[in-house]
C-alpha cells in the first residue's frame, strides 16, 4: 500500500513538474496569466466599483457568484457538522 502510494505520488509530482516546463518565467508581468484578464480588473475596478481593494472588488462583484457559493459552502459545513455530531434528542 505504501509503495503504491509512493508511486502514485511520484507519478503525480512528475506529471505536474512536466507541465511546468511550458510556464512563463516566475514573476513575469507579461505572462499570459497577468496580461489577459487581470489588467482589466486592475485598471478598471476602481472606476467601476469604487473599491480600492481589488481583491474585495473582484470577490464581491466580478466574481460575486463564486463568493455566494463560498458562503453557502461554509454554511453547509456548519450544518453538516451539526448533522453528523448531534445525537437526536430523545
Amino acid at each position, binding site marked *: 500500500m505504501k509503495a503504491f502510494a509512493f508511486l502514485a505520488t511520484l507519478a503525480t509530482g512528475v*506529471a*505536474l513538474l*512536466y*507541465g*511546468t*516546463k*511550458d*510556464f*512563463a518565467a516566475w514573476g513575469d508581468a507579461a*505572462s*499570459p*496569466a*497577468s*496580461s*489577459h*484578464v*487581470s489588467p*482589466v*480588473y486592475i485598471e478598471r475596478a476602481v472606476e467601476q466599483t469604487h473599491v480600492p481593494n481589488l481583491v474585495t472588488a473582484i470577490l464581491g*462583484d*466580478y*466574481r*460575486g*457568484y*463564486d463568493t455566494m*457559493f*463560498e458562503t*453557502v*459552502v461554509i*454554511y*453547509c*459545513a456548519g*450544518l*453538516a*457538522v*451539526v*448533522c*453528523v455530531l*448531534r445525537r*437526536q*434528542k430523545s
Partner: protein
Amino acid sequence: MTSTNLHMYVMMAPLLAAFAVNLLGRVSRAWIGPLSLGALTFSTIGALLTLLRVLHHGAYRYTVGNWQPPFGIELVIDPLSALMLLLVSGVALLATCSALKSVQNELPGREHLFFTLYMILVAGLLGLVLTGDAFNLYVLLEITSITTYGLIAMGSGRAALSSFNYIIMGSIGACFYLLGVGYLYILTGTLNMADIASILPGLNAPAAIATAFAFLLVGLWVKMALFPLHIWLPNAYSQAPTGAGVMIAPLMTKVTIYLMIRVMFSIFSPDYTFFAHAGVQAGIVWAASLAILCASGLALAQRNLRRMLTYILIAEVGYMVGGVWLANGTGMTGAMLHIVNDALMTLCLFLAAAAIIYRTGSLEFDRLHGLYRRMPLTMAAFTVGAFSMIGIPPTCGFFSKWYLLLGAVQAQHWEFVAALLASSLINAVLFFRLFELAYFKPAGEDVPSASQPCGDAPPLLLSPLVLTAVALLVVGLGTGPLIENVIRLALPPGFAP
C-alpha cells in the same frame, strides 16, 4: 420576473427553500414538505420553460453581475444544459417525495437539517449544470461534495467511515481539478471556458496543456467513480440514509459525466481531446470496457440490493465515459442519452429500494422473499426499472444502449461492444436472480408473518416510483424526438450522429 433570469430562479429556488427549511423546519416539521416540494416544483416548471426557450430561440449566455465575460462569471444555457437542468430538478422533485417519508422514518427530529443540506445539494447540482466558468465549477463541485459528505454521514452503521473515505477521495478529485484549472489559468490568463477554448489552440505549450487536461479529467473521474477510482462509492452510497441515496445516486455521477463532456468540448476542442494524443482515446475506451466488466462482475458478488445497485451504477459510468470517448457522434449521442436514461433508471431502482426498505427494514437478499405478493405495485415498477437496466425495449435503457453499441460498432471498438453486451447479460442475471427471490420464495418462512406488514408502500413513496417507471417508457418511446430536438444540438460541431 423577466425570462432572462429564469434559469437563475430555477437554481435559487431550492437554495432559498433550504434556508427556509432550516429556519421554519426547526419550528415545525410541517413546513418541510410543502417548502421543498414547492420549490422543486417551481424549479421543474422553470427548467421546462428554459428548455423550451432554448429550443425555440437557441442557446444563450448569461453573465452574472452583468460583467462582460471573461471578466464576470458566465453561465451557458444550451440545449444540453437546459436538458440537464430539467433532469436534475425533475429527478430531485420525485426523489424528494420519497425522501420526505423515509427521512421521517430514519432520522426523526433531524429532518430540517437533512432537508437543508438536501436542497442545497439540488441547488449545487443545478448550478453545476449551468456554469460556464472553470473555477465556479470547482466551487459548485465542492458544494455538492460537502453536502453529500454530510448527508452520507447521517446514515447509520459504517456511514461515518464511508463518508470519511469519500471526503479523502473527493478532495483528491477536487484538488486535481483545481490543479488543472491552475495550469490552464497560467497558460491563458482566464477562467472562462469559452475564452480558454479560444486561446488554447494558439498556444505553444503542449506539455502544460496535456497536464492540465489530464488533471482535469482524472479529477472528474475520481468524482464520478470510474472503475479503478470507484472504491469510495459503493460504501458511501449504500450506507447513506435512504432518502439521501435516492437523490445522490441518480444525479451525482450523471452530473459529473456532464461536466466531463463540458470540459472535453467547452474547454478543449474535440480535436484536441480525441486526436492530439495517439492512443489515449483508444486507451480510455479500453479502460471503460474493463471498468464495465469489472464493476458488473463485482455486482454479482453482492448480497444486498443497494450495494448491488451501486456496482451497477459504476458499470454505467463506464458506459457513458466509454461512449463519449468513442469519438464519434453516435457514441456521444448514446452517452448523452444515457445520462438522462440512467438517471431515471437509477432513480426508479433506488426509489423501489426505498419503498422496500420502508416496509421490510432491510435490503439483504434473503429478506426479499415474497415481495411480489406483498408489494405488487412497487415490484412492478422495480421490474420496469430493471428491464431498463438490462436494456429491454421499449424501456429507455435499450435505446441509449443501442446508440452506444452502434457508436462502438462504427468506431470498430469491438471490446466496448463485448463489454456492453456482457454487462447487459450480467444485469439480466442480477435482476432475474432478484425476481426469482421475490417471486418464488413465499414470505414469512424465516420471519413471523405477524411482523410482516402487508401491502404496498404509502402513496408518497409509491407515486414517484410509479411515475418514474412510466417515465422510463415514455422517454424510451420519445427517444427520437429527444435526440432530434435536443441532443443533436448539443453535439460538438462535426459530430453528427
